[in-house]
Each structure stands twice: as structure tokens, then as C-alpha cells.
């Protein structure tokens, strides 16, 4: 790896990290697992002047549950999520990220602030209606996942803010499904669909569907959700609702997937994810 020249600091506290970011200006970047940033630096598509490494900042990793909320530290690696099955769809999605090496190093906070619409966790966080806690020079604030992703690799965080924690409502009793489509298991999703369903007596009380890589930001599929909410959950109603999965999306095309094909995949994967979430398939 031959990146452009940069300065490096590994502060021992969050305050120092924030202050380093502030002094570093717009060209300063936080380094967590490095699995998004370092490849970009290696290709010289990113050339930050300063890397602020969070590895020495205490208290940023770990998963805890209390008061109906999951609290996930920003530096929690994907592998920990993968091996915490109680996290439901988050765990299922984390298990599909790249390969074991990436899952051991890559972090949930890094993935969310990178804001790549093709990454697994952003849309999942939207489906789970999680929020993130961010710390800046003037204190702490909370950003709902639904408002976090502002544009292609652009988030609502200011340049001198650090995402410290993800908070997510406990979805005990909800069914879930994560359907990721890629050519090879280590690839980014060509399209992925996450679904969580709260059913009572076969009726859909609530449902949320997240779409990965179907636009410049991660998305929800409101038309699917509306079509299913309050309905009897069966193969037919799910299939009908899933037909609207690509409604209003404008997915970016590439060599291996046209926009039309991606919309088709979204519909198929949505149906499969919902069937799983509704317990109709395994």
C-alpha cells in the first residue's frame, strides 16, 4: 500500500480525538477498522492529511441490552454482531459481510459513517429504526438512522463529530429476513433486502423493509410496508407487496447489473426476505 503522505495520531480519549479532528480540518479522517478507508487511500482515491485512529479510545466497543434498547459501541466489529444472534436481522446481515478477515476488523460505526449504499448495515439500521449517538466539540446529539444518510457516501455527521454508539430498539418477537444477492460471497451486495415483521395471529402489525444498493443512499421500501401492514401474512399477500419493492427507486447500473435487473432483484429478494420474516420459509 503506497498512499499519499498523511499524518497519524492515536489519541487516548474521545475529547482528544474530536480536538484532533477539529484541528485537522476537512482533510482529517477517523480511522476505525480501516476496511473502507484504507483501500481508498491505497488507490489514492482518498488522501486525508491526518488519520485520527480510534484504537486507543476506551469504551467504544461492545454490545449491551437494557430498557428495550440495544446499545452497540461504534468500534464493535462485524464479527461480534455476527456472533450475537439475539440481534436478529443485524446479526444475519453482519454474517454476510465480505469475509472473516473483514468481519474481524471492520466496525459498525465505520460502516455507517462511510455511508456506502452498497454496504450491508446502513439499510438494516434504517429497517430497525436505529439511531446513532454522535459526539462533537459542542456535545452529544442523536441522529435517527433514517436521517443519517444524506447522499452518496455522505452522512449527517459534521467533520468534527465522532459516532460513538448505535442504539436500536429490541425487536423481540419480530420475524426477520436478510436476503443479499451478490456474485461471490465476498462481494458487496448487488442488491440486498432486509425485512422485519411484527405479526400477531398471522396478521402483520408492523413491517419495515430496507433496501441496499438501490440508490445513492440506503432506502426503505414504504410502498411494500404500506401494502402489507394490517394484512394477513401469506405467500400471496407477501408476493403482492414485494412487487412494489423497487417503487420509486433509481438504482445505479454497472457492468454486471442494469437498473432493470436490480429492480427485478429487489422484488425477488423482498419477497424472499418477507417470507423468511413471516416464517413461511427458512
Amino acid at each position: 500500500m503506497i498512499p499519499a503522505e498523511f499524518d497519524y495520531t492515536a489519541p487516548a480519549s474521545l475529547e482528544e480525538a474530536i480536538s484532533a479532528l477539529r484541528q485537522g480540518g476537512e482533510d482529517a479522517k477517523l480511522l476505525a477498522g480501516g476496511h473502507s478507508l484504507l483501500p481508498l487511500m491505497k488507490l489514492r482515491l482518498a488522501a486525508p492529511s491526518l488519520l485520527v485512529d480510534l484504537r486507543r479510545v476506551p469504551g467504544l466497543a461492545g454490545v449491551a441490552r437494557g430498557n428495550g434498547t440495544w446499545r452497540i459501541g461504534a468500534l464493535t466489529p462485524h464479527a461480534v454482531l455476527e456472533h450475537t444472534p439475539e440481534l436478529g436481522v443485524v446479526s444475519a446481515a453482519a454474517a454476510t459481510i465480505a469475509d472473516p478477515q473483514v468481519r474481524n476488523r471492520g466496525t459498525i460505526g465505520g460502516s455507517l459513517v462511510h455511508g456506502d449504499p452498497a454496504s450491508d448495515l446502513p439499510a438494516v439500521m434504517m429497517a430497525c429504526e436505529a439511531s446513532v449517538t454522535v459526539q462533537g466539540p459542542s456535545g452529544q446529539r442523536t441522529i435517527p438512522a433514517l436521517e443519517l444518510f444524506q447522499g452518496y457516501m455522505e452522512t449527517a455527521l459534521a467533520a468534527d463529530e465522532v459516532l460513538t454508539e448505535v442504539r436500536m430498539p429490541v425487536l423481540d418477537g419480530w420475524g426477520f429476513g436478510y436476503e443479499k444477492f451478490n456474485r461471490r460471497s465476498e462481494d458487496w451486495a448487488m442488491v440486498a433486502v432486509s425485512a422485519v415483521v411484527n405479526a400477531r395471529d398471522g396478521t402483520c402489525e408492523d413491517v419495515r423493509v430496507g433496501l441496499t444498493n438501490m440508490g445513492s443512499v440506503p432506502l426503505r421500501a414504504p410502498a411494500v410496508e404500506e401494502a402489507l401492514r394490517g394484512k394477513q401474512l401469506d405467500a400471496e399477500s407477501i408476493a403482492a407487496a414485494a412487487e412494489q419493492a423497487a417503487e420509486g427507486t433509481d438504482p445505479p447500473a454497472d457492468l454486471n447489473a442494469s437498473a432493470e435487473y436490480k429492480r427485478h432483484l429487489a422484488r425477488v429478494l423482498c419477497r424472499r426476505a418477507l417470507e423468511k420474516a413471516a416464517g413461511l420459509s427458512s
Partner: protein
Amino acid sequence: MTTGGAAEQFIRVAAETTEAAPSPSIHVGQAMRRKEDPRLITGKGSYVEDINLTGQLWAAWVRSPEAHARIVSIDASAARARKGVHAVYTHEDLDIEASLPMIWVPPEIEVKTPHHPVLAKDEVNHVGDPVALVIGDDRYAVIDAVEDIVVEYDPLEVVVDPEKALEEGSPLVHEQLGTNKVCEWSLGGGDLEAGFAEADVVIERRIVNHRMAGAAIEPRGVLAEFRADRLTVWSSTQVPHFLRLFLSILLGVTEDKVRVIAPEVGGGFGSKLQVYAEEIGCAWASMKLGRPIKWIETRTEGFMVTHHGRDQIDTIRVGAKRDGTLTAWHAKIIADLGAYQMLLTPAIPPSSAFVMCGVYKTPAVQTDIVMVMTNKFGTDAIRGAGRPEATHMIEVTMDQVAHELGMDPLELRRKNFIPPFSNGHETPIGVTYDSGNYGGALDKLLEHIDPADVRREAEALRKRGVYRGIGFSTYTEICGNAPSRVIGPKGFGLQGGGWESATVRVHASGAVTLYTGTSPHGQGHETGFAQIVADRLGIDPAQVDVIHGDTATGPFGLDTYGSRSLSVGGEAAARAATKVAGKARQIVAHQLEAAPEDIELHEGRFSVRGSPDKGMTLPEVAGAAYVPDNLPEGMEPGLDEQSFYDPENFVFPFGAHACVVDVDAETGKVSVVRWVAVDDCGPAINPMLIDGQVHGGITHGIGQALYERIHYDESGQLVTGTFVDYALATAAELPSYETDRTETPSPVNSLRVKGVGEAGTIAASPAVVNAVIDALRPLGVDYINMPLTPMRVWEAIHEANGGVRA
């Protein structure tokens, strides 16, 4: 029948029986673990990147972002002023007159070859074309400096589609050639017209065999040191001897003063069978500056400027009678060579023609090749080099014929197999296959997999929307690149020989070194060759050190490619060892007062027949040879023998592969769920090494069929320039392969062996395509071109359904 001049020259070779060397097979045939692995898997291997010299400087290249443009100006002033930068060179500075080499000069055939400079002169012709060479203190300094160099380009019209490049009025890649069509070549035999006239059905298919990369784990790298009038170059190459020759020619240093070392080389797959601009440029700069110069390729450069392979548009026509009898094959190949003729670029498509009737009796066969230049990087040999393309055409088309005739694809194959032969079968093309038993390999395959079982499974799976299919490939190929008089200047036209060399040196202590002229890069020669030599000398393979890849040790050699190492280089090693054993017998006979013909190898000793207690071990013989106070009259001291071996024919491995796939009809995703391979490369020297080659080979073939593709967009930009976009199959995508062998001896060499490095790749891709088509026939899909990406398969299903979304 029409054939080109070179085709006429492509002489018919009779297979010749060679006497087997009399030695017991103790180690040969054993699945001995690789001697090279302990050092490689514990990080003790030394690759070019691991080697550093005092005073070493680094090189980096300014590369064209344009696919075709005139260079208006180059401003390197900022880079030259940068701290740590020693020099920036452009074409003006380079006093190398000669072109980078291309060595195919077929008799009576014109091959138009543009000048190929180390640094672009006036014009760039593909993305990545080197424009300037930067030398500096370290890798960071030179790569930073590259970004400081401002090159102004005046873009020219770009052509990337070979068919468009052939059209009148197409932009020309090289204006001075006056055309993009740089060579036409034909090879055939038999009466094609009569063949097609006899046919009840004629099937024609347009088969695109797309461009792919070698994608070796270790990128290329060079370290060049010119010191005291001697040039030493370490390079991650398959061909150190070739490189030495061309360094000598291009840089004007005589060969005796040039040493090339290929240290550990982490894979090549043909992509390091080349003499690259970077190798010549770094050596030149070392001579210029008097400092060692090092360059290690980035992966991005690897995809851009390490040669690609395949890239043919094939139109294949086959005639058959109603009963399945094949009457004629006619292949028309448009070969996209890219922007320059590299070492063997135009000689690769003709390799398709040599096996264009596959394993089948066919009275008439014709291959017409048109080679065309485009604004892409050069193509050259990539694993299989021409034969995968031929096999793909033949084997995919066989299934198409079977479907047309309503025949079982295996029945069609069996009906047309050349019957078993052990000592030569001449095809209408003029190539003489050495030995074959194609039905035998297929029989063995069917012991492992029953198509009826797969069909039953397919029925059950279809209810779940999964379409299971089975596809076969029965292949032969031509390898063991050798017979000099066939491939050489007066034959096929390569400006070189095809022999191989070996020296077996028994040291005074009895330790043995084998120097081979082959240059392995992952195959396992150190193990296999040691097994061969050990058996001939009555010692353990662990006692045979195999030295390779250094032009300063051992005799001149011709390196490793074309599955040639074992059948040519291994045979040379066997012959050199046999010479040593012969001398040892004479010494032993003399010392023990017996007749040389009565000395036999028995339990590691050269002993007198009938008196096993009377004998000498190899160390004892070596002692006698190097302390020569009691040698036979007139015998020279020493125990050190050399062999140069030039075979009479190529060798033709063959086999039968079966692939089972599941296709998710909704998404188009193909999963390979089972692979059974029966390969025949003659008697095994080391079955484990064969399995290793077959596994890798199949993976390469599946890779091309489903995943890997080098793709340029219309403006000539490389779209697949990282491992994110260039999708290599990983273990997660592949099933465990089931391998088996049949062993049909080759009459060509005393080991009776054939090559196996490329066989898996040559066999694999059509089996995948046939399996997918077999799976999707119920949905009306008849044919799909590679790579079978999910979208492409989905579109094929979609189209077959008359536009109704599946």
C-alpha cells in the same frame, strides 16, 4: 481444402517410441508432499519484493489515462525538483532502438507488427501505455512524483470492438500499418465442402470467448543491478532464459554478462511468459545510473499492463449426419490482439487450430483466423493459450448438435470418438496425436457420476424454482511445447527451439543437485523432478536438490509454459540422471570386478546382480569419481552429466469432465454444485501434484465461465481494474472437486507422461456452459455466451420466455 503457407509448413510428425529407462519406480508414482511447501507456508520464500540491494532506487511509471492519443507535451519539471527523485526519463532519453520482442515469424505469412517501444513515442495506444519512467529513493517518492508529471494528450479516435476495427473506415490503432487486420492464418485438412455437403444438419454458433487475466497472486516485479559490466536482473517471470536473451539484444550486453534470476515466483498462468517493458526499462535505468533499480507492480497495473488472454469471437460451423456422424468442422476466429504484438501474441490464436477437431473423427476441419488490433492491452498466452478457446467451441457445439439431433450428448460423443490408439493418430489437420483412449476416460467418469441421478435430483429441485443441469466436456489438447523442427523457424515459425536441458550433479559427498532449464512458479517441480532423479540414482527425493530459475546455474534452458516442464524438462532430467547412473554402473563394475550390465540398482545400492551384498551406494560411487585413483581406463573423473532433450512430438493429454450446476431461475444465479474430473496425463509421477494442477485448472475454467472478465468500455477505459470488479472465484463459490485418472502412456518420452498444467482449464469452461444450458432447456434457453453472470442468465431466461419476467 485451402491451407496457408505456414499450415503447409506445419509438418506431420510421427510419434516415436523411446526406450524406457530401466529403473524401479519407488518414488515415482507416490503422492509425495511438496518439498517446496515448508519454506513457502512458513514465509521463508524469497520473492523479488523480498530482495533488497545496497544503494537500490525505486522505479514508477507514468501511464496513459487515454486509450489512444498523441502526446503533445510532457512536463516533468515539478517531479524532477521533488526531494528523493533522481531521474525522470521519457522516450527521448531512451536509447533503445529495438522493439520489445515478438518472436513469431511464420514462413510465407505476413504478420504486421507495429514498433513497440519501452516508453511511448509520440502516441499512446492503450490505457496504461507507459509514457515516463521515474527513478527515486523509495517507492513513496516515485509514486508521488508520478502524480506531479503533467502530460498533455491530444485524443485520437478509439476502437475497442474487434469487429468494428475490421470495418472500412474504422479508426486505426497504428496509422502506419494502414489497417487493423494484422494477420490472416488458416489451417485445415480434408474436403470441407464435401463434408458439409454430406451433412444432414449444419449447426452454426457465434461464440464469444471473452478476455481474461492471469491474475497471479504475486504481482510482477523487477530488480536490476548493473555493476562491473555485469547485469543481474531478478524478475517475477516464467522465462528467465528468454529474458536474458532479450536483455542482451535490447541493451547490447552480451549474454555471458547477463544473469536473470526468477526467485520464488507466485504464479504466472502465462501472464509472466513475456518480456515486459518494465523489465527492460529498469535494467536500462540501472545501467544508466549505476544503481540497482526496483519496481513492484501494483495490482491496478497488473490488470492494466500484464498481458491478457483469450478475446476471440468465434463462428463455428459443424456438419453432422442424422445418425450423429460428424462430417466437418469450420471455425472462423476473430482474434483481438490489443494494441501491440507482444512476445507470442499472434501465435496464440493458431494454437486453437491445432486441436480443432478435438477428440472426434472428422474428415474435414478448417480454421480461419483473422487477427485484429484494438486500443486495449495486448493479449498473449493465458493458461491454455488457444486450446481452451478451441475446446470451448467444440464441446459447446457438440451439445448443440446433440440437441438438434435429439441425441444424448454422451452418445454423440462416443459415436465420434477417435478409437483408442497408443502410438500416433493423424488428424486431418496434420497434427499427430500421441496416444488416447477417450472412451476410457468417459467410462471412468461415469463410474463416479450417473447423469440419470442428476436428472432425478433436477426433477425434485424444480418444484423449488431451482434448475439443475449437467454438462460434459471431453477434450484433448496439444502441449509439451517442444519439437524444435515443428515449432521452430522453418516449421510453425517461432524464432527459437523447443528442447529442454538438465544437469544432474552428484557432489563428492553423494548429495545430488538437479539443474533444470524449466522455471517453475508454483507447480511443484522441486518435488516431481526429485522423484524422477531419485529413482534413477537409488536415493531418496529429499536428497535431490532441484535448482531452477537462475541463468547462471546449470545449462541454457527454455523455461516453463505450455505444460512442457514434465514431458520435456522432466524427460531431460530423467536422461541426465540415467547418464549419471550409467557412469556409476561402470565405476561400480570396475571396482567390484563385474560387468557393467550386471550392475543393478537394488535397495539404494548399485549392486552386482545375484550378489546383493556386493555393491556401492551413490556416495561411495561419488567418492570414487572425485578421488579418481581407481577409475576404468580412459574414464574422466567426476559424476556430473547433462542432457539436452528435443522430443519428436508434442504430447496430448485428454480427459472427461462433468459439471453439475444449480440455476436460480428467478435471479439467474449459477452455482456449481459438483465437479467430477477424469484426466489422463500418462502415468503419474506424483498424483498429488496432478490434483493440484487439475484443481487450479478447473477453477480457472469455472472462473472464465462464470466470474472473470476483463472489460473495456467504448472509450477504451478498463472497467475491471481491481479484484472487486475482476471477480476471481473463491473457495466459497466452488464445490470440492472429485478427481480421478486414467493412465494412457505417451509414446513420445521415456517417462510416458503428458503435461497437465493447463488441462483442467482447457476442459472446464464448456462443461459449465453445457450444464447451464442443460438446466435451462426446460425454460427454452438454447445458448448463452460467457461469462454466465446472473444478469446474462436472467436475460436469457427472460428472452426465451418471450419477454415474460421469470
